[in-house]
Every structure is written in C-alpha cells, then in structure tokens.
C-alpha cells in the first residue's frame, strides 16, 4: 500500500510550485526565428521560402488573403506540421523542428486556433485548470490536487476574460465569443513566452473586440504575441508591426500605414477588400 | 464382402472385353435395326435381361465377369447400363427381382425405368428397391472399360479424354488393342496420350525407351510411374528415371510458382469482392457497416433462391442472380440506411454498434425463415472443373470466373465513381457536405444511393461466394473482419487501394501458407496489418489533402 502513502504524502513539493519560466534564451536576438521554410501538400506550395523573426515582447499582426499560409505557418511553429526544408528556432537555443507539440507547448508557445477549440464536456473552470502551467506528465497529473493558489490564479484569469459567473458551466454551452475568450484565457493560464493567436475576434461584438484589443496589447511586452486576423479595423487598432503573407511568403512588412500603402499589397490583398 | 481379384484373371477378362468391343462395333448396325424392330412382347427373350439379372445376382467376387458378359454381349444399351451401375442407379425390385434403372432417387419414393425398353415405370417406395452394390474398385474398372469404348468415339476430344483416363490403367491385356488403336488414330494429341499411356505401362515393365517418352510429361500418373521406376531394382532404369524426374521437377517448379500466384490472386479477388462494397459504405460514407457480411450472405441466398426457382438450370439461375443479388442486397441496404444509419450521421462508432445489431437480426432471420442448415448451391457445368494449361498446371474454373467477376465489378465501380453524375455527387458530398448541399445536391439522396450501391456490391460478392463456400447463416461473419482489414490496409476511401490491398493480402497469405500452415499464415497477415497501420495509420493509399483531416 506504499502507493497510497506516496499519494497522501502532503509535505511533498510538487514540481508545479516552482514558477514555470521557460529556459528560452533571448539575450541575443529574436524569440522566434524562421528561415527559408518550405512546405507543400501534394505539389501545392503552402509555404514558400518564408523568412520571419519575432522579437521578444513584440506584438505582431499577420495578414494575408486566404491560402496565404497563415495557419500553416502556425502549424509549423507549434509542431503540428513538419516543413520540407528550412529551420525554425525558438530563442537561440531551441530548434522547434526537433520537438513535438507538447514539448513546444511546455517550452512556452501557446496557440489559439482559428476555430475556437475548448473542452466542451468540461466546465469553464476545468478548462482553465487543465491549461494551467504545471507538471503535465501522467502520474503527477493523476495525483494533482486543487491548491488554493491555483484557484486564485484561475480566479484572476476568469476575471480578465470576464467569465466568473460561468465558471461552473460546461464550456459547450458558451457563445462563440465566450469560447474565444475562454481559449484566450487558457493561453494566459499557460504563461507562454509566445502567443500565437489565430483570428481572435471572429464572431465578437464591438466592445468584446475592444477588450480583446486591450488584452492583447497589455500582454505584449511581457510576452510576445503573434496575431493572425482578417478584420482590418481590429488589426489597425492593435498593430505596431504588420506582416503581409502572400502565397506562402512574406510580401511586405512594416507599420500598418506602410503596408497598407504598399502597391503590391493593395494589389493582392486590400485590392480584394475594397 | 469385396472382390479380391488376382491380376491374371482380370487380364484374361480385359482381353475378352477388348475383342468383344471391336466385335460389338461391327455389330452395331444390326443390333440397332434389331432393337427398332423388337416387339415389346419379345422382351422375355431379351438377352439383356439375363445379363442384368446375372450382374445383380453374382457374388461380389464375380462381378467382373458379369460386367464383361454385358460388354461382350455387344448390346448397344450396355453403356447406359454400366453408367447407371457406376452411378448407383441400378436397383432391383425386392419381390419381382426385376432389374430397373433409378431415374430419381430422392425422397421416399423413387422414379424408376425399365433398362431394357427405357420405358418409365413410375414411382416405387425405396423400401421395395434393392440397390445393386458397387464400390470404388469396380467403379475404377468401369471407367477404364468405358474409356476403351470412348477411344472409338468420333469426337477427338472425347478420344483424348478417354486416352487420358487410360493413363495408369493400362495393363498387359490393353497393350495390344491400344497399339492397334495407335495405328488407326491420326489425331496427334490423342496419339501422344495413348503413347504416354503405353509408356507408363512399359516403364512399369522395366522398358528403358519408354522412360524417354515420359521424360517430357508433366502428368501426375507419368511421374508416379517414374517414381516407381526409381525404386525398381534395375539400376539402369532407376537412374534413367531419376534423370527424367529431375528434368520434370524443373518444369514443375515454374508451374508451381504460377499455381501459387494464381491461388493468391484468386483468394485476393475474393477479398476484394467482399471488401469493395465496404470500401464504399465505410470509405466514402464513413459508416462502419458490421452488417456488411450479412448483405453478402443475402446475395448468396439470392443465388440459392434463384436456383430453386429455376430447377435444373443452375447456370441460368446464376446469371439471373447477379442482378437479383444486387437488387436484394441494395434494397436491404436502403432499408438499413433509412431505418438506422441516417440517425447516426457523423457518429461512425455508433453506426458500428447499430449495424452489428442488424447483422445479428439478419442472421437469425435467415435461420428462422429459411433454415439454420447450409443451403445447396449447385455449380453449373461451365463453372466446374478446371482450365488445363498443362498436365501440372490447371486453373480451377469457378475461381477463374470469380477472379474475372471481381475485376469487372471493380471496373464498373470505378466507372460509376469517375464518370457518372452519382459518382460526382458522392465525391462532392464526401469532400464537403454543406458545400455540396448549397450547390443543390440532395445529400440525403446521395447517401441512400451510395449505401445502396455499397450494399448491392456486397450482394454481388455473395453471388460469387456462393460458388466457393457454404451458403449458410454464418457466411457473413467469416468475411467481415477480413473485409475491414482489406479496406483499412488499402486506405479508406480509395477503391484502388482496396483492389491492391485485397490482391496483395491474398497473395501474401497463399505464399505463406505452404510453410507456415493455414492458421499461422492468417495470423501473420493480421499482425502484419496491425503493424502496418502503426506505420501508416491511413493505409497504403491515404486520402489526400484537407478533406481527409475533417
């Protein structure tokens, strides 16, 4: 019955009490670094010699028409898709191409999907609990106990995403916008160094958008944030630096005004918008 | 009990037979006339009667003589009698002692005919009838005798066949007449046969030249003869035969390889047939239809039903049951789709459970409605026997047809999927349901059609399988798992994959079988598939692009 003792051993210091700061080394240079990345699905070139760097604490917006390769790019960064060629570095130490999703996630890259994906069969509270930066290995997870400080932490996040009253509702019944928020909340729980946010404001009301904008901007600095968004208004409201993707490679980069005046961009992108 | 003949006695008899046959042939015309002019009353003094009674009465040990007596009588009805005798159709009526030919020996009352006049004598309780006993040994000799008779047939094929029957059956008594036959015979292949037949005998006699004749032959009996020669105490003969065998073995190797390949393909074709319907319902619609096997079963039972409707014409019935089987299974499929599956959209694992229930119901239905027993499905003439490439390599016809059938069905399906409107719609719906809908494709209708198609094809498989295996309530179960293996191995949603997977799995299985044994071979294949799925979770030919992710 030693297991039981083991389990009920209260004065054991659990790994997750030690703050989860990822050992990412950004002393010299960017936090994310992509070079000559190429991906093709049965002949179709989704990513084409993509080169991009994200600096530590930066808030970057990425825009581009459908099929420009935005989502694919995120897949590559998060380890979902392996590129055919090229290199992707997280900080100056971690070669992301050698890692799988969980490792990359624990390393400190959080991702919000285009289509909000939360655990519908779990409550809002539980969703956040699972997202919390703790020891994610099997046995510790089995033994994990709900400590007061966790409740506080979750409480704070609930505060930020404004879902306090819904904490015990199944995430399945949330509105589209609320799911978006919950997912963002889950990202916050992860305490990532780099957030990849795919179309965060789709299906949000005006004020919801504003709050999202505030949130994201407030995050920047502490963490690096990469936002993929179609809504130009929103992009303009948060963007400091904008990257335009087209046919899998960088078409233009710069401030919103620069890119939106770039003839190339207007042709392929804003042109369509207008 | 059974006759123990000493060869000389037999030889003596054979001598008679041959002579008499030749005589009988010359007498034929006269005999013919005589029988035409024969008044019914004159039956009493019909020599045939005595002959038959004799055959019926003599103790088993002297049956030969009785037979010979019949043959040498030159009576042209002899052949009919002997055949009837060979088929256990010669009986005698207990009380009158009259010998009769049994036309139909099913049920309690048997239909009989008079062997002399051929007139039908109506039915008679089997209690009243007493079968005239025959056994394999006598039957073997009968075949020899009848073969001799056939050597004079006008149709060269018949002559060749009979000459082939002679192989290994030749003995001293037959040599002379056969040589005579050889003189008369002008058809080359028939001559070859007769020569081989003679050679087999001569090798047995220790004749060296004869070995050369057999050296080229792949015929098992020739090999048998040589094998014996090898064991003979005449060293010269022995090692000559040895060499001959060696050369034959060389040829055989090739033939065996070809044979195994054929076995593999044929098994593969069965797998493909069984699986291809599933490839549609499972692969295209994502429905895990555990009742697929039972749909196959329905097809098989349709064949049986057809043969009941068209008694005596199994071939025709089989042809008809191809469309019939398709329709029956397809209808069943539609019913299943409407009554159950449509409620389980996008819940594949649930469809698995529901359809499993359906399969149980269908099985029990057949058990109660038809019978728990297996049903007899007759193989039509043109499908039984085998296509002889050479003496060592012959392809069983029924499997050959099934193989062809499988390929045709596959081709047809490809056509439907590629060329027809339905195929287009099906692909559209599988790619993106909502989009297809919005483009005015009636998705539900497409579902029904697809499922019907898949089920129908299962029905076709059943029709084919009815020619290879049991038609019974468990028919389906024996194929369902294999079918899933094939589909998954080939790559879901990919017909080509299913074809390749089926054929290759079949071949692998047959290649393994000789040294691994049937069971182990199957196990190995299963394990192989399991491991393969680990390597390539989406099978041989995975569905490409985003559609597959969905």
């Amino acid at each position, binding site marked *: 019955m030693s297991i039981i003792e083991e389990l009920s051993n209260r004065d054991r210091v659990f790994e997750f009490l030690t703050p989860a700061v990822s050992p990412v080394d950004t002393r010299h240079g960017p936090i994310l670094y992509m070079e000559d990345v190429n991906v093709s699905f049965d002949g179709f070139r989704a990513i084409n010699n993509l080169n991009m760097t994200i600096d530590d604490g930066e808030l970057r917006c990425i825009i581009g028409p459908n099929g420009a390769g935005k989502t694919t790019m995120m897949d590559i960064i998060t380890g979902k898709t392996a590129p055919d060629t090229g290199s992707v570095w997280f900080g100056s130490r971690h070669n992301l191409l050698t890692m799988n999703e969980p490792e990359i996630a624990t390393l400190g890259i959080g991702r919000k999907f285009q289509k909000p994906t939360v655990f519908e069969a779990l409550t809002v509270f539980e969703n956040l609990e699972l997202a919390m930066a703790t020891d994610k290995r099997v046995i510790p997870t089995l033994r994990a106990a709900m400590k007061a400080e966790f409740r506080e932490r979750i409480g704070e996040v609930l505060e930020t995403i404004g879902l306090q009253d819904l904490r015990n509702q199944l995430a399945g019944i949330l509105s589209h916008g609320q799911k978006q928020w919950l997912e963002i909340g889950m990202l916050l729980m992860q305490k990532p160094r780099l957030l990849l946010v795919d179309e965060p404001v789709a299906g949000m009301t005006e004020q919801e958008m504003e709050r999202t904008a505030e949130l994201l901007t407030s995050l920047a600095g502490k963490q690096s944030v990469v936002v993929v968004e179609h809504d130009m208004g929103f992009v303009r409201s948060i963007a400091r630096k904008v990257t335009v993707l087209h046919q899998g490679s960088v078409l233009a980069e710069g401030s919103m005004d620069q890119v939106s005046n770039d003839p190339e961009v207007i042709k392929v992108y804003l042109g369509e918008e207008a | *009990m*059974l006759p123990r003949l000493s060869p000389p006695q037999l030889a003596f008899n054979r001598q008679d037979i041959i002579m008499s046959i030749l005589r009988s042939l010359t007498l034929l015309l006269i005999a013919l006339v005589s029988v035409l002019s024969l008044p019914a009353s004159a039956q009493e003094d019909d020599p045939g009667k005595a002959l038959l009674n004799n055959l019926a009465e003599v103790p088993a040990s002297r049956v030969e003589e009785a037979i010979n007596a019949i043959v040498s009588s030159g009576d042209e009805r002899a052949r009919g009698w002997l055949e009837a005798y060979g*088929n*256990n159709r010669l009986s005698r009526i207990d009380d009158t002692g009259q010998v009769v030919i049994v036309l139909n*020996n*099913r*049920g*309690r009352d048997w239909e009989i005919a008079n062997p002399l006049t051929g007139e039908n004598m109506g039915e008679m309780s089997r*209690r009243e009838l*007493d079968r005239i*006993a*025959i*056994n*394999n*040994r006598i*039957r*073997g000799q009968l*075949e020899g005798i009848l073969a001799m008779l056939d050597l004079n047939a006008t149709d060269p094929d018949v002559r060749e066949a009979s000459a082939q029957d002679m192989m290994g059956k030749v003995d001293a008594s037959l040599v002379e007449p056969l040589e005579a036959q050889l003189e008369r015979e002008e058809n080359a292949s028939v001559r070859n046969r007769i020569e081989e037949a003679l050679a087999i005998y001569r090798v047995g006699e220790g004749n060296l030249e004869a070995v050369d004749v057999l050296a080229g032959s792949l015929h*098992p009996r020739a*090999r*048998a*003869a*040589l*094998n*014996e020669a090898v*064991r003979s105490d005449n060293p010269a003969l022995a090692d000559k035969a040895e060499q001959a065998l060696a050369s034959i073995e060389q040829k055989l190797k090739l033939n065996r390889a070809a044979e195994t390949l054929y*076995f593999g393909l044929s*098994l593969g074709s*069965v797998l493909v047939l069984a699986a291809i319907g599933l490839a549609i319902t499972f692969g295209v619609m994502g429905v895990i239809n555990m009742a697929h096997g039972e749909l196959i079963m329905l097809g098989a039972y349709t064949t049986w039903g057809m043969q009941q409707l068209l008694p005596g014409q199994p071939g025709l019935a089989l042809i008809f049951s191809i469309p019939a089987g398709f329709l029956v299974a397809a209808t069943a499929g539609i019913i299943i789709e409407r009554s159950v599956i449509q409620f389980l959209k996008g819940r594949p694992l649930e469809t698995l459970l529901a359809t499993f229930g359906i399969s149980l119901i269908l099985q029990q239905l057949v*058990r109660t409605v038809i019978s*728990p*027993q*297996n*049903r*007899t*499905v*007759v*193989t039509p003439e043109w499908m*039984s*026997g*085998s296509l002889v490439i050479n003496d060592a390599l*012959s392809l*069983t*016809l029924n*499997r050959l047809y099934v193989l062809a059938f499988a390929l045709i069905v596959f081709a047809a399906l490809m056509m439907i999927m590629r060329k027809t409107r339905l195929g287009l719609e099906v692909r559209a719906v599988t790619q993106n349901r909502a989009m297809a809908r919005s483009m005015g494709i009636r998705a539900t209708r497409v579902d029904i059609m697809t499922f019907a198609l898949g089920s129908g094809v299962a029905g076709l498989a059943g029709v084919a399988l009815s020619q*290879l*295996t*049991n*038609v*019974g309530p*468990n028919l389906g179960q*024996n194929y369902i798992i294999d079918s899933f293996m094939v589909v998954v191995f080939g790559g879901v949603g990919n017909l080509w994959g299913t074809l390749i997977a089926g054929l290759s799995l079949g071949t692998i*299985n*047959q290649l393994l*079988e*000789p040294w691994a*044994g*049937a*069971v182990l071979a*199957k196990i190995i294949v299963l394990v192989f598939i399991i491991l393969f799925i680990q390597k390539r979770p989406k099978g041989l030919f995975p569905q490409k692009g985003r559609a597959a992710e969905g």
Partner: protein
Amino acid sequence: MTIRKHVKLGLSALALSMSLNAAAAEDPIKVGILHSLSGTMAISETVLKDTVEMLIAKQNAEGGVLGRELEAVVVDPASNWPLFAEKARELLAQEKVDVIFGNWTSVSRKSVLPVVEELNGLLFYPVQYEGEESSENVFYTGAAPNQQAIPAVDYLMNNIGVERWVLAGTDYVYPRTTNKILETYLMDQGVAKEDIMINYTPFGHSDWQNIVSDIKRFGSAGKKTAVVSTINGDANVPFYRELGNQGISASDIPVVAFSVGEQELSGIDTGPLVGHLAAWNYFMSVDSDANYDFIDQWIEHTGNEEAVTNDPMEAHYIGFNMYIEAVKKAGTTDVDAVKDAIIGVSVPNLTGGYATMMPNHHITKPVLIGEIQDNGQFSVVWETPSTVAGDAWSDFLPGSRDLIADWRKPMFCGSFNTATGKCGASAGEMAAEEAE
C-alpha cells in the same frame, strides 16, 4: 408449458425467488435436453433436440415408463462453452432433471463434465469423439476412435489397397487425437513416416487451394493414396468443391470422412463427390425396417419430406431406449440405481442389430463404410462382420495404453491402470465422493 416453467426459471435465476421444482417434483420423469439451438452449432444440434423430443412423445404415447410421463426440459447453451456448464447446472440443480441428453462438441462435453460429476447426474453423449475419457456419469453412445477411424483405415488398406495417407483435420482435439491414434496405428502396420501427411486447418476454413494441390502432389508419388478427413462441418463444402474442381475423383484419391454425414451433405452439391467415403455406425440409407420406420417417424415429426437422419440421431435413439430399459430394470429413476442397471442393457439399433452398454459406458456398434451418392445419401460398401465395442482408452496412445474403464463394483473406475494396478486419481476421487 415448459415456457411458463422457464419464465419462472428466469425469475429464480434473478435469485431470491422460489426454487420451483420443490413442489412440481416426482410425477413426470424429467429429461433435460442440452443442445445448442442458436449460434454456430445450431446447424448440427437442433435436429438432436427434435429427435429426443420425438422419442419422448413416442414413449409417452406408449404410456411412458413406470407409469410415469416423460417431460422434456429444453435449454439453449447457444454454442457457448461456459454456458453449457451453466445450463447443465441449471438442469440438474434447478430443474432436478433425471437425465440429460446433450452436447456435440468435445469442448462442450469437457465443460459440462465436472458439473455432471459433481451433481451426480446422467448424461448421454451422442457424437463420435476422440475417446480418452470415461466418466461415471456419462454414457458415450457415439463412436470411439476404434469404432470409426481404425476400421475405416483397415478398409482402405485391405480393400482399396491404400499405401499413402493424408490425415487432414480441423485443428481441435478430436482430429488431433484421432490422427495421433491413426498415425501410430498406420506405423504399426508398417506404413513409412514419409507416406503419411498430416495437415490441420482452422474452423470454417474456406480456402483449400493450396492444401488440395499439396494432396494432389502427395498423391502422385506412385502409391495409392487416400485422405482421411476429420475436417469439421462448415469447412467441408469448400474442401470437396476444391477437390472436385482440381479434378481429384474418388477413384484417384478417395476421401474418407468421419465428420461428414447426411446432415452435412444436405448442404453440398454431391454431384462431384460420388464415390468418396464416410465411416459411421449408421447411414440413413441402411436397408432395415427399423430404420425405415424411424425415418418415417422423423419425417412425420418434422413435417418435411426431405428431412434426413444421421448417425448422432441414431445414437440418441439407442441411448434413449437404453435409458428407458435401465429405468424399467431398476424400477426407479434414481441415478445410482440406473447407472448400475444400464450396464449390460442391450437394445436394437437402426441397422438391424443390437447395441449393448459396456461397463466402460461405451456401447457396441457396427462400423459401416458408405460411399457418397449423387442424392446426398451414402450407400454402404462395407461393414464390420460383427459389432465393435467402444474403447474408452486407445491402445495406440502412449498415455492410455494401459488404462481401462469398468464401472462395475469392485473396480468401479474410469481409468484403471493395468500396469500399476491402481485407479487413476480422478476416478479415485469420484469414488471418495461416492463414499461420503
């Protein structure tokens, strides 16, 4: 009325409900029928259930026995081996039946055996089997290997002159044991090892191409070759089909089957099979009045003109009559009394002779060799001059050479070792339980 009984039974199975038969007791003699009515074995076993029911009806028409009616208690073990044991217990413990007729497969018998022995019941087992067993409580009315396999092989050897043997069987204990016995027997007869080919296939094996072509090859070695088939039920159809198509006729390589009877043939187009052999102790085609009466009865009972009879049915016919006789003799249905009384009882079989219950709980049977005819029947081509007594322990297996069974006191032992002069443990234990 059995229906009602079973509803009750269900309830009692739910537990905590009345054990019904306390009241219902005595008057009728209860005959338990333990044959699968569903599942894979239903094919073979359903007819046996009907047979017993028919026999019971007949017996009752004749006024039952000891002035008591007989009553059938039917349960369905559904071709599920553990369920056999459970249902046997149900019959004996809940229903308190006086005797059980049942089982087909060896495995089902093996699973029932401990139950019947524990609850001291009576079981009549009607199917030919591998032997190597003799239980105080079981009566084996089917053939033991020496009543089927060995005579058949003798026939092939002496009358057909077979020198080369293929022993093909389904991979389970009956073929395994039978082939072991035959192998030893053939070798004792001076057959060389390389002249024996043994092959096992799984249940319901359907692809025989390779094996049949092997047999063909094996048969072309210049010696007369025969196949001794212990292939089980379903696998036979494709097997014979393949034989026919690969052009192996009965006169080239005869196949003698031990598990193919009229029942199985009714599912095959026998055209290509004419002349192949089967060895049984009974054939439907046997020309005896007893048989014809039985057949008429059967056709009447089933109401199907095409209905066929087969060997296990005869076994039940014999077993049933033996039981009746034994009960009359003992004047009671008390199990132990009947067990004593039945030894030595002999009743007419359907082939015009008599069957006697031997002290080893096996019976005497004639052995018939039949040739398949185109009407799905067998025609008898050979039979043993006199009946053969079933041998529980084969003389051709090392383990059991010295064992004999005799259930008469004082020996009273299912596996008495003539070498050591001691009784095998299992039986000893039974005797011990007896004593308690």
